[in-house]
C-alpha cells in the first residue's frame, strides 16, 4: 500500500513537472483586453525599417499610456519555417511582420489564420499609401496572390537592380546601358579586357534574382499574370521569357560574363567582389544599399534598372499581418497606421530605405532620394515584377539549386526548365 502511494506520488510529480514545462512555454503570447500589444518583426536592428518602426512603437506608447507593449525581434527564417504553427497556436502576437508570398502569407490566409484587413485598409487609407504595392498583401480564397482580400499591409518597398562601379566604367570607357543589347555589349567590353564583369553567386539567391530580372526584361504583363495566377502549366517553350533567361544565363556563363565558379559562392562572396572593386557590376536588392554605402568606400557607385520591358524585379516589402487569434486588433491597427504615416515613411526614406509614400521634398539622404525616386517610378508604371518563387511552395529551392547546376555547367537550359516545370506543374494541378 505504501509502495503504491509512493508510486502514485512519483507519477503525480512527473506529471506536474511536465505541466509546469508546458505552462512556462506558453508565456509571452498575446493576451487580451486592449491592455497590451505584442509586436514581432525580423528586420535587422538599425536598418531603415527598424528605425522607422521603433519610432512608431514609441509614438504608440505615447498615444496609449495604459497599454503595455511587448516587442520581440525574430528572424526571417523562423517565420518561414514555423510561421504557420505560431499563428495556429495561442502564442501568436497581436501584429507581426510576415513573409509575403503564396507559400507563406497566402497559405495561412487561406486557412483563416489571418484577419481580413480589406475594410480597415480602406477606412484608414492604407490602400492609398501602398498603391499597387498592396498586391503583396492581397490573396484569393486559395491563398494565391492577386485579386482577393487584403490580409497584409506592406509599409516599405524593395526592388532589384544593377549596381555599378562608376570609376571602372570610366576607366574602361563604358557607359550605362539603356537597352538589353547595350547591356550585353557592356559585359562583353569588360570581358575583352580580362575583367569578369558580374559579381555573382549561383550558390545562393543572387543568381535567382538575375534569372528573374532577365526574364522580366522579356516578359509581358499577360505572361506574368498567367505565371503568378497558376493559370496553366509552366510555359517552357522557346518563346517563354523564363526559357530565354535560362539560355541567357548559360550563354553569359559560357562567355565568362558570369564566373562558372560562382556556383560555389555565397551571396556575401558576390557582394564583397563588388565592394572591393574587383567586379564592376552586380545585381542586388535595395536591402543591400546600406551595406554598399558602408563598405564600397574606394570608388563611386550608382545603379540602373535592368533594361528591357520596363518591368523590374521588386514588390512591396514584407507585410504586417494581424493573426485571427489576436485580442487586441484595434491596437494592432493603430500601430500599423503609425508605420504608414508621413512621419515614419519619411524616416524610412531618410535612413536610406525604400518607403512606400515618402515626401520627395522631405528626403535629404542622397541614397534615400535615389532609391525612393526609382521605386515610385516603378509603382507608377506598374513595373514591379515580383519574385519568381511566389507561385509555388518551395519553388525558391528548386530554382536556386538547379540554377547552381546550370551555372556549374552540369545542366543544359532545357534540363533546367524541365526541373522547374515538373515542380510548377505538380503544384499547379493540385492548386489550380
Amino acid at each position, binding site marked *: 500500500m505504501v*509502495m503504491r502511494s*509512493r*508510486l502514485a506520488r*512519483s*507519477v503525480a510529480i*512527473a*506529471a506536474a513537472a*511536465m505541466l509546469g514545462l508546458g505552462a512556462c512555454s506558453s508565456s509571452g503570447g498575446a493576451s487580451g483586453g486592449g491592455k497590451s500589444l505584442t509586436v514581432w518583426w525580423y528586420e535587422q536592428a538599425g536598418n531603415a525599417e527598424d528605425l522607422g518602426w521603433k519610432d512608431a512603437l514609441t509614438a504608440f506608447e505615447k498615444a496609449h499610456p495604459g497599454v503595455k507593449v511587448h516587442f520581440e525581434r525574430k528572424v526571417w527564417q523562423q517565420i*518561414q*519555417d*514555423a510561421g*504557420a*504553427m505560431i*499563428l*495556429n497556436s495561442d502564442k501568436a502576437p497581436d501584429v507581426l511582420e510576415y513573409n509575403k508570398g503564396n*507559400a507563406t502569407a497566402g*497559405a*495561412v490566409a487561406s*486557412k*483563416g*489564420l489571418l484577419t481580413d484587413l480589406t475594410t480597415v485598409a480602406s477606412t484608414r487609407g492604407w490602400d492609398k499609401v501602398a498603391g499597387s504595392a498592396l498586391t503583396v498583401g492581397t490573396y484569393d480564397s486559395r491563398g494565391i496572390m492577386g485579386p482577393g482580400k487584403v490580409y497584409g499591409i506592406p509599409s516599405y518597398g524593395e526592388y532589384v537592380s544593377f549596381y555599378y562601379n562608376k570609376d571602372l566604367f570610366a576607366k574602361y570607357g563604358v557607359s550605362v546601358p539603356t537597352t538589353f543589347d547595350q547591356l550585353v555589349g557592356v559585359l562583353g567590353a569588360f570581358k575583352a579586357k580580362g575583367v569578369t564583369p558580374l559579381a555573382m553567386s*549561383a*550558390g545562393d539567391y543572387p543568381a535567382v534574382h538575375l534569372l528573374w530580372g532577365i526574364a522580366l526584361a522579356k516578359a509581358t504583363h499577360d505572361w506574368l499574370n498567367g505565371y503568378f495566377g497558376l493559370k496553366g502549366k509552366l510555359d517552357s517553350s522557346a518563346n517563354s521569357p523564363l526559357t530565354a533567361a535560362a539560355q541567357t544565363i548559360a550563354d553569359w556563363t559560357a562567355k565568362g560574363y558570369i564566373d*562558372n*565558379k*560562382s*556556383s*560555389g*559562392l*555565397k551571396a556575401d*562572396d558576390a557582394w564583397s567582389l563588388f565592394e572591393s572593386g574587383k567586379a564592376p557590376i552586380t545585381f542586388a536588392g535595395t536591402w543591400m544599399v546600406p551595406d554598399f554605402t558602408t563598405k564600397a568606400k574606394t570608388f563611386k557607385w550608382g545603379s540602373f534598372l535592368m533594361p528591357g520591358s520596363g518591368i523590374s524585379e521588386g514588390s512591396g516589402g514584407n507585410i504586417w499581418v494581424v493573426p485571427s487569434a489576436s485580442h487586441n486588433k484595434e491596437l494592432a491597427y493603430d500601430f500599423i497606421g503609425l508605420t504608414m504615416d508621413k512621419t515614419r515613411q519619411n524616416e524610412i526614406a531618410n535612413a536610406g530605405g525604400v518607403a512606400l509614400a515618402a515626401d520627395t521634398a522631405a528626403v535629404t539622404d542622397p541614397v534615400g532620394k535615389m532609391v525612393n525616386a526609382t521605386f515610385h517610378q516603378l509603382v507608377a508604371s506598374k513595373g514591379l515584377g515580383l519574385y519568381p518563387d511566389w507561385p*509555388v*511552395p*518551395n519553388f525558391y*529551392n528548386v530554382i*536556386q*539549386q*538547379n540554377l*547552381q*547546376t546550370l551555372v*556549374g*555547367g*552540369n*545542366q543544359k537550359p532545357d534540363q533546367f526548365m524541365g*526541373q522547374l516545370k515538373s515542380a510548377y506543374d505538380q*503544384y499547379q494541378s493540385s492548386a489550380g
Partner: protein
Amino acid sequence: MTITAARPQSARRVPSLTRAARQGYVRYLIPGGAGFLALILVPFGMNVAISFTSWSGIGSPHFVGLKNYRRLVHDDLFWSAFEHSIWFIIAMAVVPTALGLFLAAVLFDYVAPRFGRRTASFLRGGFYLPQVLPITVAGIAWSWILNPYGAVNSVLKDFGVSDPPNWLGDSNWALPSVMLVLVWMQIGYGLVIFMAGMARIDPQLHEAAELDGAAWFTRFRNVTVPQTRPEIFVVLLTTTIAALKVFAPVFVLTRGGPGDATNVPSFYSYTNFFGSLQVGYGSAVATVLTLIVIVLAVIFVRVQSRSEGV
C-alpha cells in the same frame, strides 16, 4: 601461433529480486519513461498518423490512406536521397571506423610508448576536436576552405593545378566534398572509444604475440582488432544510424544541392515538411527512415549478441 582470445567470464549470476524489490525500482523509471513517452513515442505516433494524410500543416488533414507511400515508391528524389545515404554510411561509419581503429592503435602502442602518454593524449584530443566543435561552426569554416577561391584551391594553384575543382558548387564534386568533411568530423569519435577499448586488452596477449615474432601489423590484425570487437560494433551501429539520419552538415554545407546532388532523406523530409508544405508526404519519408533505422539497429544488435555468445 594460436591465440585464443580470453573471453571474460560472465559474472556470477545475481539472484533475481523479489517482486516487491523490483517494484521499488519502478518509480526510478518514471522520469525517463515520461520523457520517452512525451518526446519520442507520442510524436512518432502522430508522425505515423500524419503520414496517412494530405496536410499543409495548417487546417485539418485529409485521410488519404497509403497514397503518400505509393508516391514515395515512385519518387526518384527519395531514392536518390537514399543512395546518397549509402555514401554517407561510407563517410560516417565505414571509413572513420577503419581509420579510427588504425589511428587508435598507432597512438596506443606506437606513439604512447615512444613519445609519451602526453603526446598521445594531445593527438587524441586533436582528432576528437571536430566532435566538440558545433556543426554550424565547422560547416561554415569548411565552406570557406572549400570555396572555389578558398584555402584549398589557392594551395592547389600554388602547386600548379590551373583549374582546381569547384568543391561544393559542382554536382560531381559536392558529394565527395561533403563526405570528406564528414570523415574529418567522425574520426575522433571512434578513435576515442577504440583507445579506451585497447586499454582493456590484456597486455599478455600482445607480449605473447611479440614473443612469437609477430610484427606490429600482425598483432594489430590478430590481437587488437578481434579484442576490440564490441567497441567496433558499437561505433559502427551508432555511426551508421547517425549517417542515415544526417541533417545538419548537409543543411549547413550544401542544403542538398547543387540540384539534388547531396540530398539526404532527413533533409528531403524537412523540405517537404517546411518548404513545399506537404506535411503528410514529409511524414511518410520520416516514417520510412525511422523504420529502416530501427530494422538496421535490431540486425546490428542481433549480430553483435550472437558473436559475443550472449
